[in-house]
């Protein structure tokens, strides 16, 4: 055994050195590869974050544009607005009251607000009111209209869309 060791001493020494060198080089390479791999992961995450923030920013901007067409959730403002429309149309508001219990099921943010009105006036005045409502940029529409034999007494429901949240 000793003779073999002696005979192949150089061989063993060289192979051993190569092995140790190889091991150290692989370790060195792996160490830096791990670091670079971490950087790659960070870069990927940062890019994803960048894209998401850009996308969120874009949606926020779009929301800001759209939310101006919706009413605030405050019903008094809506009542004032509708009252103002009726007066402009030459109608006499007999009664105006919010209709409770109205809700749509799937909506996340949009909520309907309905006002029930009893008005006195002629057909032309009614048309005026309808024109005013149709021209309004806000999301308001007449959801129900009833003109009976007594033409001067009109009942109608005006629906306005409000937002549950005004900021996202």
């Amino acid at each position, binding site marked *: 055994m000793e003779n073999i060791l002696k005979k192949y001493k150089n061989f063993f020494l*060289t192979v051993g050195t190569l092995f140790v060198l190889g091991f150290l080089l692989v370790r060195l390479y792996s160490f830096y590869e791990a670091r670079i791999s971490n950087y790659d992961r960070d870069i990927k995450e*940062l890019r994803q974050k*960048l894209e998401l923030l850009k996308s969120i*920013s874009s*949606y926020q901007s779009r929301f800001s544009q759209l939310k101006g067409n919706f009413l605030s959730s405050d019903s008094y403002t809506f009542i004032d607005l509708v009252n103002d429309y009726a007066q402009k149309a030459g109608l006499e508001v007999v009664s105006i009251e919010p209709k409770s219990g109205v809700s749509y099921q799937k909506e996340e*943010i949009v909520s309907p607000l309905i006002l029930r009105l009893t008005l006195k006036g002629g057909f032309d005045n009614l048309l005026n009111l309808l024109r005013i409502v*149709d021209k309004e940029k806000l999301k308001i*529409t007449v959801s*129900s209209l009833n003109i009976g*034999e007594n033409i001067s007494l009109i009942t109608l429901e005006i629906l306005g869309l409000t937002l549950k949240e005004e900021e996202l």
Partner: protein
Amino acid sequence: MKKRLGIYLDSQGIAFAEAEGKDLSSSVFLSFSYLLEEGKDFSELSSTLKIEALLQRGLRELRTELKEAYLGFSEKESIFRVLELPYMNKKELNLALPLEIEKYMPFRIEEIFWDYQERRVFREKKIKIAFLGMKKTFLEENLKAFSNVGVKVKSVDSGFFSLIGFLILLGKIPKRYKDFAVFSFTREEGEIAIFSEGFPYFSRYTKIPLTLEGEPDVKKIGKDLKMTLRYYQGEVKGKELEKLFILGESSLVNKCEEEFQDLGISLESSPLEDVLKDRKVANLSELKAYSLAIRDYRAEFLKFNILKERREVVLREEVSEVLASREVLWNFKSLFFLLIIGVFIGGGIFFIQISKESSKVVEVKKIEEELKVLPNFKEFGSLSLTTLKDKESYLKKIIAELREYSDIPKDNSSLIELLGRNITEGMWFKSLNLKRERNLRDLYLVLQGYIYLGDIQRERNSLNKFITKLKESEFLKRRKMKVTLNSVRQQELEGYKVTAFTIGIR
């Protein structure tokens, strides 16, 4: 000019020559038989004492005051070998040669004094070695005799190769010849050497065969030479010797020229008497002594000194130790070489990876800068990717929902106007009910009214006309709304027969 003393010993006697510079001052040859002639009985004496006696006599006859001598022996006493080794440096050669040469001789290296000359053949990556050795016991015995007579031996060389070197120096063997043979002989002994590519290839000593009359048998010498030359040609195939130089007494040389014609090689004879121009030497031994005396002028590759101090101290153990240390040295060199390669590769990896890492760091910083300038970075920058994804999904849904309500129909007034605009003859409305569905797009209208024209057919025609006009209106077509007549009947109203109708628009 400096004087030097050359002494040559062979089996017949001792030759002395004193040279001043290159020139021969005096020479003398004393045969061992000379001692017998003096009538003294030396037969019982040792060879050392015989040599001592001849040395004293020779130095006296030469009338020299020199106490240092350049010594040479005949080939009979020497061991001359030529071998080839793979290419290696001087240090490695000094270590490898002693062990390698043992394969070529029947002695251990410790038993001999030795020296060598080398010829490096780069194109073949090998070293040719001309090795000269002499048994220590023999040389020490002879050196003792020299010491006893007060002569210090400066060097010990081969008498024959000294002679060849001298002949080359004289131009008797022109330098242009590279493959040649030299044969020198006396009546008792001869020596032959073959040179290949200007370096010794082979050398041997031979006893001169005699005829029954006691004269050298030239024919047998010729046969012997022929065999030697055949041996060479067998060893070195396809290579021809250019010339055979023959040196000896003129009478013998002349005979040789006649007998050696069938050797198949060009001959060039040099009678001993003609070698030196100014003076003559008595025999070949004196010429060898002279060639030893002018050692400094001879070609280096034929100059040996087996007395070199280093030769005496090289023992097997020392060689082994040196070889072992060389092995360690080799290992160290190999390891160092491997380490250097490793460092280079490691350095390469380090720089490549550092460079990669730097570019990644720059990229990270660039993206971070881009992030910081986003308006919502402060609000959402610290959130995790999952939270941000949820947020994005929620916003997407919200925007989709808002867009769903972006086109709520604003057509109530248009529809009512349409009804009023298309009212036909004798018609008036009783009631109008309008209802929007939950999706805010679909509309349902129920209209009740009367027609009075005093003629039922005309009233019906008026109603049909009204319905047709509604159906053909662009507004209803665009909205894809359908007009249906729900009911129509004759009814008495305030004493008049009128047509009452109900129309649905959906």
